[in-house]
Each structure stands twice: as structure tokens, then as C-alpha cells.
């Protein structure tokens, strides 16, 4: 059996009266693209910080590639690359200096070939010798990604990497992260952009008040919690009530479990004397799942 990339068991952490983590159990398999979702204050960053050794849990254990983050912290940290949420940088150094120093912290001396490769992928080659202070916000964000990758960690955690990032950079970043995932890296992502999580992540955990409230493949979550919607606009109002979810400005909205229910629904509308002028089909999306889970 292969070792899970991340194994969290019974992790709890209190800050005064607040339970930031309340018995979290979670396993992320090697090579997964995993999403960690939840509203602000749900415990996502606390969980990531605990994995990274920045926060010490009150009880429970966390392992990265089988290495306990406390007892075996050196090996655990070598396996993990973290892109922090805050846009932090050291104003004393150039991009290349910052990356060389970060490599050294992980015990790697001559790392320039790999550093050049990362800089190339992140479109930073031209800025290699620029001081960190002179970079734009988007570039600083990319340097943070580069810093997390200097030691070629098998597990990469990105804590809201696209907050406040423009569309072009976001797409470039996802292309690169997808490539890393294809190359075998495990990716754990937190984001508030649910459409990003929906397209990228193969499995998703949702946190609420420090607890895991949903954990499944993205496909299953969409199938389980979300519904398809059928919207039709009629030439004239219907006499009968067909159980529409919503009714406004001539549009009727119906909730359907599956696409094969569309035909039956349309037939009922026609049988009730409705003349369909326009029609729209709505896909299930993660936002609906998210809202459903958080309110359940």
C-alpha cells in the first residue's frame, strides 16, 4: 500500500474559546489534486499551518508522506512546499538570492539549474536579478510559488494562491500547477474561487468550524448535492402548478436530479398548455454544493 501524501488524524486546536480544528480526519493520496474549501475562519489555514509546523495541534497527529510533522519534522518539511496566503517577501534580496537562500535552508547547495527551470516556467527569468521590492504583486506571488518549489517537494500546498491575481497570471499559474500534478506532485489547494476548485480538483474536503463536513470526489459531490436546473419561458402563464422552484418574469425554473428528466418535464409543460418560447439548462456547480453543505 502506498503512503498517503497527507494523513491527518483527530487533529484539534483551540485558540481560547475558538475551536480552530475540531477533530479533523483527512487523507490525501499521493498524486491527487485536492481541494480544501470552507468559509473564512473554517480552519483551512490552521490545518495547513499545522502541516507546515507553524501551528502545534493540541491533540491528534499529522503526517506528510508518512513523516510525523512534530516527531520527524525534518523529513516532513522536506516533503512539503507551502505557498503562503500572505504576499510576503524579504526586501533585502534579489529573486535569485531569495531562491538560493531558500534552497540552502533545505540543505541544497548548488541548485541553479532547477532554479532557472522554475524561473522559466513562472515567467520570471527576466526578473532573476531584480530586487524583490521592485516586483509587482503578481510577480511576488510567483516568487512565493518558486520558493515553495526549490527543494522539489512531492507535496505542494497552495493557500489561496489566486486571491487578487489577474486572469492571465491565474491561468498561467494553473497551467504550471497542473503540470506539476501531472509530473506526480500532490497538490493541496485552498481557494474561495469555487469554479477553480471544480475544474482543478479531483477530490474535495469542505471545512466548517474546524470540522470536515464533506469529503468526496468532486464528481460525487456534484452528483450528490447539486441539481440540474431547467428554465423555460412561456408565451403565456400556465394555469396549473407543476412544482416550479421559482417563477419570475415569465420564466419557470425546475430542479431536476438528472438530465434524463428533462424530456418528461417538457412534456408536462406542454400538456398543461404551455408554449415554450425559450429554454435554458443549468449545470450543477460547486457553488450550489458549497452553499448546500454549509447550510445543512
Amino acid at each position: 500500500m502506498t503512503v498517503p501524501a497527507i494523513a491527518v488524524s483527530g487533529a484539534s486546536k483551540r485558540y481560547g474559546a475558538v475551536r480552530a480544528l475540531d477533530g479533523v480526519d483527512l487523507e490525501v493520496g499521493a498524486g491527487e489534486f485536492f481541494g480544501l474549501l470552507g468559509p473564512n475562519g473554517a480552519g483551512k489555514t490552521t490545518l495547513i499551518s499545522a502541516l507546515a509546523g507553524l501551528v502545534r495541534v493540541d491533540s491528534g497527529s499529522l503526517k506528510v508522506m508518512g513523516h510525523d510533522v512534530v516527531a520527524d519534522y525534518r523529513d516532513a518539511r522536506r516533503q512539503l512546499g507551502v505557498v503562503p496566503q500572505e504576499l510576503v517577501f524579504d526586501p533585502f534580496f534579489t529573486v535569485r538570492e531569495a531562491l538560493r537562500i531558500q534552497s540552502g535552508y533545505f540543505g541544497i547547495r548548488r541548485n541553479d539549474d532547477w532554479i532557472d527551470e522554475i524561473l522559466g516556467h513562472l515567467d520570471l527569468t527576466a526578473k532573476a536579478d531584480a530586487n524583490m521590492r521592485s516586483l509587482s504583486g503578481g510577480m511576488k506571488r510567483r516568487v512565493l510559488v518558486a520558493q515553495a518549489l526549490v527543494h522539489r517537494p512531492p507535496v505542494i500546498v497552495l493557500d489561496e494562491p489566486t486571491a487578487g491575481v489577474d486572469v492571465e497570471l491565474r491561468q498561467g499559474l494553473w497551467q504550471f500547477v497542473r503540470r506539476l500534478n501531472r509530473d506526480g506532485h500532490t497538490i493541496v489547494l485552498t481557494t474561495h474561487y469555487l469554479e477553480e476548485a471544480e475544474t482543478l480538483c479531483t477530490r474535495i474536503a469542505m471545512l466548517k468550524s474546524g470540522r470536515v463536513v464533506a469529503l468526496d470526489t468532486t464528481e460525487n459531490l456534484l452528483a450528490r448535492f447539486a441539481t440540474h436546473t431547467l428554465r423555460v419561458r412561456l408565451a403565456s402563464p400556465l394555469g396549473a402548478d407543476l412544482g416550479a422552484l421559482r417563477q419570475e418574469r415569465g420564466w419557470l425554473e425546475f430542479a431536476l436530479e438528472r438530465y434524463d428528466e428533462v424530456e418528461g418535464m417538457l412534456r408536462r409543460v406542454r400538456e398543461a398548455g404551455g408554449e415554450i418560447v425559450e429554454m435554458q439548462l443549468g449545470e450543477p456547480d460547486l457553488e450550489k454544493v458549497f452553499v448546500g453543505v454549509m447550510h445543512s
Partner: protein
Amino acid sequence: MTGFSTLLYKEVLRFWKVSFQTVGAPVLTSVLYLMIFSHVLEEHVEVFAGVSYTSFLVPGLIMMSVLQNAFANSSSSLIQSKITGNLVFVLLPPISYREFYAAYVLASVLRGAFVGLGVGLAALPFADLAPQSPLWIAAFALMGGAMLGSLGVVAGIWAEKFDQLAGFQNFLIMPLTMLSGVFYSIHSLPAFWQAVSHVNPFFYMIDGFRYGFFGQSDVSPWASLGVVVVCLVLVAGLTLNMLSRGYKLRS
């Protein structure tokens, strides 16, 4: 070891890149003290037999610079990294708290040594400096710098705002270094203030350091060495304990 040596390199590079402020400025301050005090007191004071006041003053100024700059280095580096958030780059890698401690303290010792050397060189035109026993000089500079570098780690981690750190520096480090016999021999003080000076560990660092230059001192250099070693062990123990618990670094 690479983690430690890289952190040490980064800390040295950090102050070296702004050496105009971190080395040049304190050397200038010391030279100003030297010019003013020696001008005013040269004719009036002879502390040790056969040693001019200016010559007496120089080792004290060197050691005061070593101590103040060692403290400034680790404390300012840590608080800047904490406030800007980039300390996370040091906390994420597999660096042990002992390596962390050694790197910050050694970088502080080096900054202190650079400034001390600068003050010594700048003072050469003003005073006769013929060190009698360089080993004593090196021992006190190293241990004094290490103790203040260590105190700087404590202050930098404890302080959450720049003004808290400034308070630590202005109300503790400055008075203790200024009142440690840099500018005078404590034998010239009234009995009460002599007694007060004897509980100031900085006095022993200055006195022992000065012994290395003149072979004369207010107390035996061995006694001073004993006090400095005990203080260093206590401060290092406190600092390592804070770091091992992750005090204010790992919540």
C-alpha cells in the same frame, strides 16, 4: 549544516548590504564620542597609570559598539521578519531551533566584530593601542557579542511592535552599556554607585575587554570572565528554551 550556514550567510548578507547604516553609522557615532570626550577630559583625567584618557576610552567604546550592535542585529532582523511576515521562509524549512539560535547569534557576533574593528581602526590616529593580550580581547568580544546577540533574539521574538523593541533597547541595553565604565573607572565613583556597577554584567565585559589592551583593570579578568560566562549561559538557556517551545513563533 547547510541550513545553519545558509541562515548565517543570509543574516550576514542582510546587514552587509546596508553596511553604511549597520557598520558605518555606529563607527561614526563612536568616533564622535571619542573626539568630544577626549577633547574635554584628556588633560584632566588619568585612570590607569601611564595610560592617556583617550587610550583608556577607546577599548570601552569598541566594546560598547560590539555589544550594542550585536543586540541590534538579531533583534532588528527578527522583528522586521516577523512584522513583514517573511520569517515564514525560515520557519518552513527543516532548520532546528539550535541551528536557528546559532545562526542569529553568530551573525550578531560578526556584526559586533565588524563595528568594533571599524571603531578600533578609526581610533588609531587618536590613541596608542597596543593590545597586550589579544586572547582576552577576543574572548570578551566573542562572549559579550554572543550574550547581546542572544538577548537580541529574545527581544526580537518578544516584541510585537517596533516601539516595544525600542523600549527594550533604550531603557535596558543603552543604560546598562553606557553605565558600565566605558567613559570612566568605577573606582572614581562614590561607594554606592561602585556597588551598583558591580551588579551590571556589562561592566565586567568592558573591564575584561579593556584588560586585554592594558593589562590593568578594575577587577580581575578571571572574575569578569566568570561573570560573563555565567550570564551568557543563563541568557543562552533562556533563549534556547523560548525557541524550543516556539514561543511567539509557532503557535
